[in-house]
């Protein structure tokens, strides 16, 4: 009967909990087991960001953290300067938060791009990309 009330109020069944735990534990197992994969990911990620801004490749930090329901990937990418070519194309494409760029309204993007251009951007204390890692 307790089970019935649990379901009634949207509590998770223990098998659903088991599945969720498994998904997370395997994600982190696989990440720990595939350091070269993480290196590849890092390199390609930086390649993409470098198309828009010049980054300090030596000081990039990429790590994975377990949050409540997902494993999140944090990338700390110091930006050295804006690419001249990219700036000519329109400042709205250059943003520190490369990953969020497409989701934001255009107006806000423009503004953040301006501040980014004006400010010295050697350091980016906030993670630039917070992406839930895909389930395997």
């Amino acid at each position: 009967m307790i089970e019935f009330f649990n379901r009634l109020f949207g509590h998770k069944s223990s098998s659903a909990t088991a599945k969720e735990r498994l998904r997370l534990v395997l994600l982190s197992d696989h990440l720990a087991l595939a350091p070269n994969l993480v290196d590849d990911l890092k390199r390609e990620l930086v390649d993409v960001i470098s198309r828009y801004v010049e980054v300090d490749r030596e000081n990039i930090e990429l790590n994975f953290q377990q949050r409540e329901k997902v494993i999140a990937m944090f990338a700390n990418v110091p930006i050295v300067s804006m690419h001249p070519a990219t700036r000519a194309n329109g400042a709205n494409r250059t943003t520190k938060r490369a990953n969020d760029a497409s989701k934001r309204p255009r107006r806000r993007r423009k503004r953040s791009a301006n501040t980014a251009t004006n400010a010295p951007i050697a350091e980016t204390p906030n993670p630039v990309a917070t992406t839930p890692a895909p389930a395997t």
Partner: protein
Amino acid sequence: MMQELKLQEEPLSTPVARGRGTAIVVTSGKGGVGKTTTVANLGTALAQRGHDVVLVDADVGLRNLDIVLGLENRVKHHLLDVLEEQASLDDALVADKHSPQLRLLASAQTREKDDVDTQKMRALIESLAQRFDYVLIDCPAGIERGFQNAIAGADEAIVVCTPEVSAVRDVDRVVGLLGNRFRPRLIVNRVRPELVAKGKMLSVDDVNSILRLPLLGVIADEPQVLIASNRGEPLALDGSSKAGAAYRAIAARLRGDDVAMPDVTVARPGFIKKLSAFFGGRR
């Protein structure tokens, strides 16, 4: 001796042309998920179908396969005796009580896994594969030396998993360690359909949505499994047991027969369950 038998009377059910057999390792990572029981039952079921089968207990130091088969009193020599040339292979192979075409190569109880020479183990499995249709290798738990020795000579791998977080995690790791040489097939053991229906146990689909392996079979948990182990009589011989039937079906699939998966779901949701499902309860 066995070859002569074959020449005299080729069993009709044997699809494999006489030649090198198949060496299959049964592994899991985690202990206690039913590897040994699986090996005993698949071996019995294959032998009952007319194949020459040898079971190799690769769990050096924790010998169990002889017990499950009820052959513990017949073991005179073991795997390490053969590897170290203290006994001939023929002397070490134990004939099964129930299935004339089944043989056991028992493990050593008083030795350690590190005593096994991996190269010699590979050569032994190869020579067994020349003589038998199927060589089933019972792998020890763990992923260390014993595991490496057990997989060394195998052509194929079967992984046994129970619907538990720890077992699935270990199988995932083992599959990674088996690497590209194998495309392991999965047996999900100890499924309790009534618990799955109540949302208290991972379903076979839950397990395999994570592991994504070719599904070889599903064994429901039932008291007969324990009873059979108590008696030392493999369940595959028991016509009334569902698990026995499931093992026979797996053996048929190993031969390449197209056998439908048994339905291990409970299809009778009670009133409360229907009601809670109506209210959006999760299973």
